[in-house]
């Protein structure tokens, strides 16, 4: 059977983003909001804390929703370095 296409892989990127999301585990309350909103499912709950995938920079769409919903301000979000990250040609 044909494997189900994951539309989310259909994104062009320029590498060299640097770190642009920082998660402070000591502040995280493990509420899980970041995990429920992320369209790329880059967050998961582990042992009562949120955990960001290590390869997030190669998957993230830079929407900032995780940062927005984090009530305890455990997530710092900037953007990838100028000229790197997602490139949308058909937005």
């Amino acid at each position: 059977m044909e494997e189900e296409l994951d539309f989310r892989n259909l994104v062009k990127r320029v590498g060299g983003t640097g770190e642009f999301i920082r998660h402070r585990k000591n502040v995280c309350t493990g509420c899980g909001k970041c995990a429920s909103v992320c369209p790329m499912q880059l967050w998961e709950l582990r042992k009562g804390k949120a955990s960001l995938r290590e390869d997030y920079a190669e998957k993230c769409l830079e929407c900032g929703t995780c940062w927005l919903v984090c009530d305890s301000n455990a997530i710092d979000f900037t953007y990838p370095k100028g000229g790197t990250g997602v490139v949308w040609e058909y937005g």
Partner: protein
Amino acid sequence: MVRYDVIVVGAGPGGSVAAKTASDLGLKTVLFERGKKPGDKSSSGCGLSPGIFQDFDFMKEMSIPSLKIRYQALHMLDENLDERFMMRWSTSDLGEYAGAREFFQLDVYRRDFDRFLADLATRAGAELRTSTLVVDVLKNSKGEVAGVVTEDGERVEGEVTIAADGAVSLLAYRAGLRGKWKPDEVTLVVDCDFQAPRERMDGIFGPEEYCNEVYVSPLYPAAYVAMMPEGFHLGLGQWIGNLASGAACNPYEYLKQVIASKPIKRLIERLGAKPREFHAHLLPWMPRPPTNTSGGGIMLVGDAAGFPCPLEAEGIHYAMVSGKIAAEVAAEAVSNGDTSAEGLKLYDERWRNSIIGEEFSAAREWAELWAGIFFNPSQWSIITPLANSLMFWASWSNPHITNFKRQLSFYKENAQFVVEFAKSYIYPLLRKSGVPLLRSLLKLGWMWMRAKRRSGFDFGGGA
């Protein structure tokens, strides 16, 4: 250090129009963009309204690929995702703008449109600095914004900073103008771009009869299909509050359901369409007028300010209007030598007196309409059968009068829903519009009586 009159951050429609206007007014202007090219970071799609063409003369120069959308449609699906009712309509005669009768939108790719506007800005004299992320604001001793700091630590001074850096406006945050959006003020939109051969699109829809569609069902928030020059965008959104609380599921899960629904599968098959690019972005959708859109040395425009319209969150026109107003206010503030918070309050006053302020005069009513109906799947388990039963006369199974009676009793059974619907969504708008309800009802009653007295309909047979 170079000193600018105006620093614009973000070369989207709001930022580029601000930079162009500021340059036209003789201000030394720099325009920062974090993408390699303007448009690289814009995923929202773009429907240009007739109003944009009316308000901005330079639109005459636009020659990018576009698709004229002359129709819109609403498809109602049931819980099996079968279509039960569909409405399709053309442009109305109500639009005051030239061209309003001719099209709803010209759909274009942001890549093309953002570059067109950024080119206008540079041609007017603005300096465009791409691949440059602005990470912070500079503040003077009075705590006013006096410039920006780039990712390399470069400090760029300017009399006025215009933050056009989108829904996640880091500048608004850093300048202390506002905290994060509240859960009911912003939505997350996911969207997939599909590519289709244009000849096939023209053959199926007719080159002059393109239609943008909304699909509703009891299973997911309203999804849209926006026809684009090389195919279409398919997407949907939901308020962050509903996503974060778990009241709605992850938007990607919804999108997968929509793509798997019968009408969309058929659309994809008929067009021979292929998924090409995935998008996600935050979209402010405010149930109240934005506040704190300016401060000492800084103004927020477009999505950064929360300006997408409260009914359907169209943001391009409002971004462009606010960008123009901000640049005009900047010019006055610079020439008066007063770029303080007090001096830039003029910006708030001006946008409130523009079409933006007019849109937000019924912000709560419009946003509640959308939140309560289009983004609330449970409503459609009732609305769709009610709409479908309006077509009682189309069934040949019973004598038509039998069907009519059944339809009436169906409506009677759901009378409470209908009344509550009118009370929640229609009545607030009537009130806002200043329609004197009692007088209107009395007048209707009077017209009813008169019509009854005069009812001399002659069907030709005579009595």
